């Protein structure tokens, strides 16, 4: 294997490694030239990595009751506690939990819900979009009319309703455990329309092209044509929508959790932390609110900027 690939690169200079192809591509060139894109990518990468490795980075595990000391409660950032003398980078909340650690763990949940919800919306939207674009007829009418109806309502409202209905279905003793999954389904279902519309539009264009005709002539099954032939050609707009949807999903999750209809206090996301922190705003403990809020803002803003850049970079008309 290694011999073969070395042969390829040394004797035939036209063949390049995948990484090289990427580094030489137009898209990487415009990426390098855009400081906004580079900075937001770096910020997103740092945030994602610190969320993934939260157990290694966080000084304490905020959900392990044995590591908590109530005497440490309400310690301001970077200042020693009056009783214990311990000091915390971003202070502690009412129960003596290190705010920095709760943010890391909270960001984990925010990102997990956001990514999972977008993936769910993407799979649902792509499937329905491909089917309605390729098959047409009644299937298309039903799917796209449903999409139209759903689009009349703001997606946050749809997510709230789905959350409420699903909550009614789950038995009371499982509600807190299931909340995260219910949240993913609610946000995902509120967001599939965009994907379905774009994929359907692109499929309508692609299915008239010759390669699809050829695939049909050699007798490939419809699902194979949809998945193996059409899908790869309609993916680039999907990527743009997915990035922008991710920012929206993170904000939607935070909003729902802030309103108390999302992640429970036992598994707090950034929104839940902001909800908790709001209660201490009047008594002067600003850090319990400020740092989760800033983290949420940075995360949402940098993903948003990345999505904006990607949209411009992949849009042939703007080049």
């Amino acid at each position, binding site marked *: 294997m290694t011999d073969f690939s070395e042969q390829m690169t040394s004797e035939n200079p036209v063949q390049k490694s995948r990484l090289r192809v990427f580094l030489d591509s137009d898209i990487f060139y415009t990426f390098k030239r855009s400081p906004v894109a580079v900075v937001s990518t770096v910020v997103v990468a740092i945030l994602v990595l610190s969320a993934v490795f939260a157990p290694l980075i966080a000084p304490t595990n905020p959900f392990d009751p044995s590591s908590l000391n109530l005497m440490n409660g309400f310690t301001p950032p970077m200042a020693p506690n009056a009783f214990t003398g311990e000091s915390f980078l971003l202070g502690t909340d009412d129960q003596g939990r290190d705010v920095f650690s709760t943010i890391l763990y909270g960001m984990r949940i925010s990102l997990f819900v956001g990514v999972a919800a977008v993936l769910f919306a993407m799979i649902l939207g792509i499937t329905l979009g491909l089917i309605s674009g390729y098959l047409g007829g009644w299937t298309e009418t039903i799917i796209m009319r449903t999409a139209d*109806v759903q689009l*009349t*309502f*703001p997606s*946050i*409202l749809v997510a*709230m*309703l789905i*959350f*409420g*209905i699903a*909550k*009614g*279905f789950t038995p009371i003793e499982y509600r807190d455990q299931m909340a995260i999954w219910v949240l993913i389904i609610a946000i995902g279902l509120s967001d599939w329309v965009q994907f379905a519309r774009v994929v359907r539009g692109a499929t309508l264009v692609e299915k008239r092209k010759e390669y699809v005709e050829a695939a049909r002539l050699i007798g490939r099954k419809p699902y194979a044509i949809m998945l193996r032939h059409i899908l790869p050609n309609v993916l680039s707009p999907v990527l743009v929508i997915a990035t922008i949807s991710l920012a929206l999903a993170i*904000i939607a999750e*935070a*909003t729902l959790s*802030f*309103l*108390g*209809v999302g992640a429970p206090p036992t598994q707090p996301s950034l929104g839940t932390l*902001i909800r908790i922190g*709001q209660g201490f*705003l*009047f008594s002067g403990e*600003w850090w319990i*609110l400020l740092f989760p*809020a800033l983290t*949420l*803002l940075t995360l*949402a*803003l940098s993903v*948003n900027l990345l999505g904006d850049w990607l949209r411009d970079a992949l849009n042939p008309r703007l080049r």
Partner: protein
Amino acid sequence: MLAYIIRRVAQSALVLIIVGLVAFSMFRFVGDPIENMLGQERTVEDIERLREQLGLDQGFAVQYFRFLEGAVQGNFGVSYRQGRPVAEILIERAPATLELAAVSAILAVIFGIALGVFTAIRRNGFTANFIMSASLIGVSLPTFLIGILLIYVFSVELNWLPSFGRGETVQIGGWTTGLLTESGLKALILPAITLGLYQMTLIMRLVRSEMLEVLRQDYIRFARARGLKDRAINFRHALKNTMVPVITVIGLQLGAIIAFAIITETVFQWPGVGLLFINAIQFVDIPVMAAYLMLISVMFVAINLIVDMLYFFIDPRLRVDRAGGH
């Protein structure tokens, strides 16, 4: 054109019937209404009697029809949590939400159009550029954070304005208004800004881009050549022609304002319909959720329909296109 209107009305009716089906299914399948209405001490006869009384022994279609019949007459059942008719609670709460939404919409329209025109006319000026950049941040900030920020600055630090509630209200007929007392007006300022800010930036950006488009047209150049005053050109000729898309967006955003009021009302503990809805979700109070769903759908569908019709009447070109196109 008549055919178009009829088709749109039929579509709207279909949407409402489907939403009604969703709302009804919530009643029918989420939890057991008998369980919710009878207490711990009940006999089998009690259950049977109530089942018959409520018509739960009949078929799905009959029950659904009855539900629609009740909903049209404003009868949505009794709230599980408060034990009062849902319609009564909604009527009591509606003025708070409608006042908040109306004031935010007016603020958003006035400031949105004014700032949009300003940034379009002075498009390379420092202030205009500053406003445009600031609006980008405004769009990225989640509504609830804007609310908390305003509370922190104006209630906690400066102590100028109240951070929750409606202040004193005055009862006029069945309508409680906070617009006539000083504390009511003060309490309205922060929630109205929070709710209207996003819509304002949206209208502003739209007016700006439409204005820039119109200002490039020949008839504007001609108006300048005729020696008309800048003000007459900008407002009488240019702004007027940007109004079609702007009115559409304003109309569609009215629905969004009512929906986003849920968030603002929670932040400011504003005693409106949105707060009621959030509490209903938290406590799985199905009748309130279903009623809110029906109410807001009627509102959304009506707004969409009206905007579509308006579009049709404001822009004569559309009438020709649609009639000729099909």
